[in-house]
């Protein structure tokens, strides 16, 4: 899962990015509105965390501009807590609103919910055949037994599970698993797929040669 954090306070940006990376997200950073909008429109993020008070281009302007092209889930994270501000933010196209100071666990839970809902999945548990994913605990179960996955392996499984029954291209996997600073090669995707197959069963992931991968419901 790849998210974009747009926040002009450098320390907060650092903390947010680190916290999300440690949870297994691929995180891109932007410290002003223009850069944020550029990245948000140029990539398919699973979610965007957006501050409202931004230099250059305000958060609301970024949001309005983004909504003309992309339905990426946006969570507004701001110090403005007045009701009119929340209403304005949500009406401008935000999917959620959280005020500073905030609890990291709440931010992450809201982020998970946003990503889940945008994939049309209302429940926190996703079942794919014999495999069950608990998105809250970021844990995969095979026939009820927890399976030890690395964060990136889990992210791959979750991405495929959220799009179960649909083809997921290698590029898409690459884009959702690695952030902009990664210089890993795209064949790393194949390595992760091989690892997941070893842990969750050979048939869990089907390969469409030359197109990508998919899991069947």
């Amino acid at each position, binding site marked *: 899962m790849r998210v974009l954090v747009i926040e002009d306070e450098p*320390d907060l940006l650092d903390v947010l990015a*680190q916290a999300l990376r440690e949870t297994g997200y691929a995180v891109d950073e932007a410290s002003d509105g223009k850069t944020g909008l550029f990245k948000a429109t140029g990539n398919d993020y699973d979610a965007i965390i957006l501050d409202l008070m931004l*230099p250059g281009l*305000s958060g609301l302007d970024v949001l309005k501009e983004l909504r003309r092209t992309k339905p990426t889930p946006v969570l507004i994270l701001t*110090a403005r807590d007045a009701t009119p501000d929340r209403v304005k933010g949500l009406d401008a196209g935000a999917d959620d609103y959280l005020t500073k100071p905030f609890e990291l666990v709440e931010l992450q839970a809201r982020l998970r919910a946003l990503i889940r809902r945008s994939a049309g999945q209302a429940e926190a548990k996703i079942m794919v055949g014999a495999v069950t994913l608990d998105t809250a605990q970021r844990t995969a179960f095979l026939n009820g037994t927890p399976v030890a996955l690395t964060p990136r392996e889990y992210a791959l499984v979750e991405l495929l599970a959220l799009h179960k029954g649909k083809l997921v291209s290698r590029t898409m996997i690459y884009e959702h698993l690695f952030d902009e600073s990664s210089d890993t090669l795209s064949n790393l995707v194949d390595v992760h797929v091989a690892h997941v197959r070893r842990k969750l069963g050979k048939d869990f992931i089907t390969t469409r040669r030359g197109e990508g991968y998919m899991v069947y419901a």
Partner: protein
Amino acid sequence: MLRSIRWTLQLWHAGLLALVLLVFGAAIFYEIRRSRYAQIDAGLERSAQLIAAGIRPVPPPGRGPGLGPPNSDRPPADPPDRPRDGPRGGRRDGRGEGPREGEPARLRIPEIVLPAALADRFATSDGGEYYVTWGRDGQVLSRSTRAPDVPPPQRPANLMRDPVGPPSPREPHTPQVRQRGDVREAVLFGPFGVNIVVGRSTEPDRRELRRLALLMTTLGGTVLVVGLAGGLVLAGRVIRPIQAITAAAESVDAANLSRRIAVHDSKSELGGLAAVLNNTFGRLEAAFAQQSRFIADASHELRTPLAVMHSSLQLALSRDRSAEEYKKTVLTCQRASTRMKDLIDSLLLLAGADAGRLTLDRRPIALSHIVAGAIDMMTPIAAAKGVTIESHLNDVVIDGDATRIDQVITNLLSNAVRYNREGGRVTVSLTRQDDAALLSVADTGVGISAEHQPHVFDRFYRVDAARSRAEGGSGLGLAIVQSIIVAHGGSIGVSSRAGEGTIFSVRLPAMPTPLTQTSGAAS
């Protein structure tokens, strides 16, 4: 309070109305009374004079008519033989016709001839008019039938020696009017020593006057009652808008400052009062709005560093970390807490300045030294951005707080450097103009557009919403600068052209030119 105004008004109204009615009524009453009595008196006097005109001297027996008035147009006649002249039943001639033997001729009793109309009046008068005449000897000469017992008037001494022959019987003395109990009488000391009293009872007149007084009292009372009722209604009408204003003003409170008093007639005094109150509420509302915006801004400014601390601590504690990572967290928290501390210091300084409690450690300071020092501090920072600082400083001594003044200059300089363009220039000049020190800090930066200029000294006002925040500004710098300068009795202004640069001009009261400078110039 309201009731008392109403009743005070009513009381005054009642008092004034009663006084006016009383004075008016009394004036009318006494004027009518006076004219009525004057009329009575005139009638009595005329009657007395007519009687006096009818006095005929009676010639003594044996003497010619020489004693009679020479100009008498009537021949003296025997009184009993003159029925044509005698008042019917009213005349007693018995005394008058019998002059006593041996009396001096001049004591002879004159006879009185009443004009017929007058005699008729005395005979038939319903008003109780009567007359009595006395001769010189105090004997009653004649009287009307209805005449009561009247004490004979005392002839004044100067008339005692009235000669027998009057100056003229047709020019009798002026009658004098007197009130004797219920009757009013005209007393005339007539010719030939005859004293005449014509009187009438004033009882009917007084009865009439009493009726008039009663009528006027009733009328006045009615007018008073109607007037009071009208006054009560009027006072109520006057009070009602006041009550409306009071009710509206009471309903306006801190939570509901947008309510206003409905102004019905803005030209009336109460309309004016309502307008004034509305105005005041408006200013209060604006002040409250400004205050709550300030608080919202302040809390917003505090939230961001707090969010940094909160989330970086949570992140650090979410798993075991290396010493390096903990150190990074601690440093992050330190930066955040420093920012919060600075912000709170600024807020406290502004709050103190608002309350007039900005404590200044004032002493004579050489402004040029402080400016030069601040420039020295800023030069490396400016150099890093390729900005050069030029200065033209004259010696000016002010009475001020060196730390605060340094804060002002440093703030202006750092703004001038921060918002300058790469390779730009900052020009600082300090001059003395009369009794003021003029400091100007000019930059060649982006400038401030006209729409923002009036607000640059507002708290938390940022020309660019978040640009200064990333660079550490809180949006309070210029507000603090202004507060400090105002506390020193000075002023600050800004002039700017977008794209060309900005000039901040500070004016501070200078101390008198030191003597050393003068003597130095002399030597």
